[in-house]
């Protein structure tokens, strides 16, 4: 058997030098006259160990990391092709604590398989969900998804099954499945990882959605900042089409379903579902008022299921193992697992898939290991640029849609950005307003004008011009934006601003007035 070496082709691993490592490995193999197969797998998500190189041995996979190009020669000298010891030796990857403690349902194959091998995908349980779905009635597929308790992983948390049912129950000559892969929230990279590491699971999930709702065409709208994900998805769609997974007779059934990959053009607001639809139609990515719901009148005015990547990628496991299996994980009304993305100033950054219900403190301190700089954690922003900043005092909040909402926050797409004590929360609040003003689509006034006024008010506050007045003004402005904006961009920008103001009031009074002597 020729040795098999896994070197991730994931963007995160590439950003840390995986390509140079691959080049060094190839050169070393050539020098030593060894024949080996190099697989460019996805990342398992432990980015503090990337580039993590693995070899398949007779005792299973053995991982080494983080590997530098300069380590490669000595790795060969240490006999790493048979799992030999080296200073970068990590042992079996599934025994690495960060990975061992996870519950990987959606990300079960990510980092394990060859992303573009359909055989590999099938060998690891792929396509079982779709096979079950084609043998069922559309209504039964929809009820399985509803029963599983799966909620939109893009941030809104709307029950996926209900959305599908609305589309199924709407008659039209044409229906669409749109996958929202415009993952623009800072601190999130789960969509990118699954598209680069296990693209077929997304294709399978979309195809199941098509069969369940009577839609025959799908679009994956990927942001242009993700060129590697675009390339992998395009190749995977091509492979799936050739294999009869997409096209006129899906897996030999009478169902027709095909899809196209589309690339965004750098507008954050297109992550909002209705502006994404306008963008797909070739218009300015402006938000549409609701109603009509996209499920009734979506893409080109036709009934459309629009779901986030992770929502769709979680469907195959539900259809494979059953709604009850999936529903068994989680807490309250948050069922199943959630891929938590731990990012920013943190010692062990990466993707951690687990059942809902862990506390924020466990995630940041125990799994994340605190800050990378070693300084105390000051704040964590949960849910991207529109998510609230949480202080340590709220670290007992369980990771659950309702629990976060009760603390004036949101879990969003489950990205967590950690800040150490050097963070200036007034600056962060100002950035939230500035970002909203840069990315506003301009359709509604509270967002378009409010964000610009917000920056100005916070700038006056930073200059200590009538601070109490500015605080009252920004509070009032946030109230207007929250309740008066058309979509979550203007409507949720108040979350980071107000949470920063409420939880870190000292940062909003930059030059305390010296107390007058008695």
């Amino acid at each position, binding site marked *: 058997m020729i040795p098999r070496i896994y070197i991730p082709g994931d963007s995160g691993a590439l950003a840390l030098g995986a390509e140079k490592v691959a080049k060094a490995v190839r050169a070393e193999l050539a020098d030593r006259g060894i024949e080996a197969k190099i697989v460019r797998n996805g990342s398992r998500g432990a980015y503090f160990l990337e580039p993590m190189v693995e070899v398949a041995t007779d005792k299973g996979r053995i991982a080494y990391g983080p590997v530098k190009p300069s380590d490669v020669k000595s790795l060969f000298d240490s006999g790493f092709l048979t799992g030999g010891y080296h200073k970068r030796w990590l042992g079996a990857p599934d025994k690495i604590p960060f990975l061992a403690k996870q519950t990987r349902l959606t990300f079960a194959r990510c980092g394990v398989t060859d992303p573009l091998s359909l055989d590999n995908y099938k060998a690891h349980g792929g396509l079982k969900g779709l096979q079950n779905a084609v043998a069922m009635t559309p209504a039964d597929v929809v009820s399985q998804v509803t029963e599983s308790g799966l909620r939109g992983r893009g941030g809104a948390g709307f029950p996926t099954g209900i959305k599908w049912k609305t589309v199924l129950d709407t008659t039209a000559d044409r229906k669409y499945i749109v996958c929202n892969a415009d993952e623009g929230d800072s601190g999130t990279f789960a969509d990118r990882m699954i598209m680069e590491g296990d693209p077929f699971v997304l294709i399978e999930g979309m195809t199941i959605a098509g069969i369940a709702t009577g839609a025959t065409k799908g679009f994956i709208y990927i942001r242009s900042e993700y060129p590697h994900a675009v390339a992998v998805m395009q190749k995977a769609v091509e492979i799936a089409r050739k294999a009869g997974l997409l096209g006129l007779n899906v897996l030999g059934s009478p169902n027709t379903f095909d899809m196209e990959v*589309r690339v965004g*053009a750098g507008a954050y607001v297109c992550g909002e579902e209705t502006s994404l639809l306008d963008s797909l139609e070739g218009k*300015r*990515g402006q938000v549409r008022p609701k109603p009509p719901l996209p499920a009734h009148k979506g893409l080109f005015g036709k009934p459309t299921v629009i779901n986030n990547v992770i929502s769709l990628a979680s469907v195959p496991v539900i259809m494979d193992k059953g709604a009850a299996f999936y529903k068994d994980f989680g807490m309250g009304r948050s069922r199943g697992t959630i891929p938590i993305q731990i990012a920013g100033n943190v010692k062990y*950054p990466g993707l951690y898939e687990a059942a809902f219900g862990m506390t924020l403190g466990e995630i940041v301190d125990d799994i994340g290991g605190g800050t990378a700089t070693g300084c105390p954690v000051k704040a964590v922003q949960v849910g991207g640029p529109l998510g609230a900043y949480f202080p340590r005092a709220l670290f007992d909040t369980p990771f659950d849609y309702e629990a976060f909402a009760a603390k004036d926050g949101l879990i969003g797409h489950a990205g967590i950005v950690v800040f150490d004590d050097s963070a200036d929360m007034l600056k962060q609040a100002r950035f939230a307003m500035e970002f909203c003003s840069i990315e506003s689509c301009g359709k509604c006034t509270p967002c378009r004008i409010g964000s610009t006024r917000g920056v100005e008010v916070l700038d006056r506050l930073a200059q200590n011009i009538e601070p109490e007045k500015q605080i009252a003004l920004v509070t009032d402005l946030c109230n207007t934006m929250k309740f008066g904006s058309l979509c979550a961009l203007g409507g949720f920008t108040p979350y980071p601003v107000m949470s920063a103001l409420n939880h870190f009031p000292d940062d909003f009074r930059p030059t305390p007035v010296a107390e007058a002597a008695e």
Partner: protein
Amino acid sequence: MTMQPASTEIALRTAVIVQELKGLEGPLLPILHGIQEEFGHVPQDALPVIAEALNISKAEVHGVVTFYHDYRRHPAGRHVLKLCQAEACQSMGSDLIAAKLKQLLGIGFHETARDGSVTLEPVYCLGLCACAPSAMLDGEVIGRLNDEKLDEIIAEVRS
């Protein structure tokens, strides 16, 4: 400086791209991406050709081109450096990195160096939040930026 193609040539090359893609559902964004790839930016002379082929007004095409951050109205430098300025990178000191880069390159965001070597742009998230601060140089991703990596970037864009 790169020579600007004449307007008739732009129209001809645009027409080829439009012809190839106009059969798609919602073809405008793919067409504009194709044009930007062909010319390095979206030239003004391309707009009427697109408008006519898609049976929409020139104003509508203009509206779409100007809405999206990606579409350039003018050619970029030989290299394009995108520096992430979003929260995860902020938490790892991207402000400082931006200030250093601007000083080293002698340009600000959205500017191109006088010798046409490089265009510097802010980007709001590259999905590399677990290896912040990050950047993208001509489509290649770079994580955990530090002084050493900045020097490599500078050397690359000046070569």
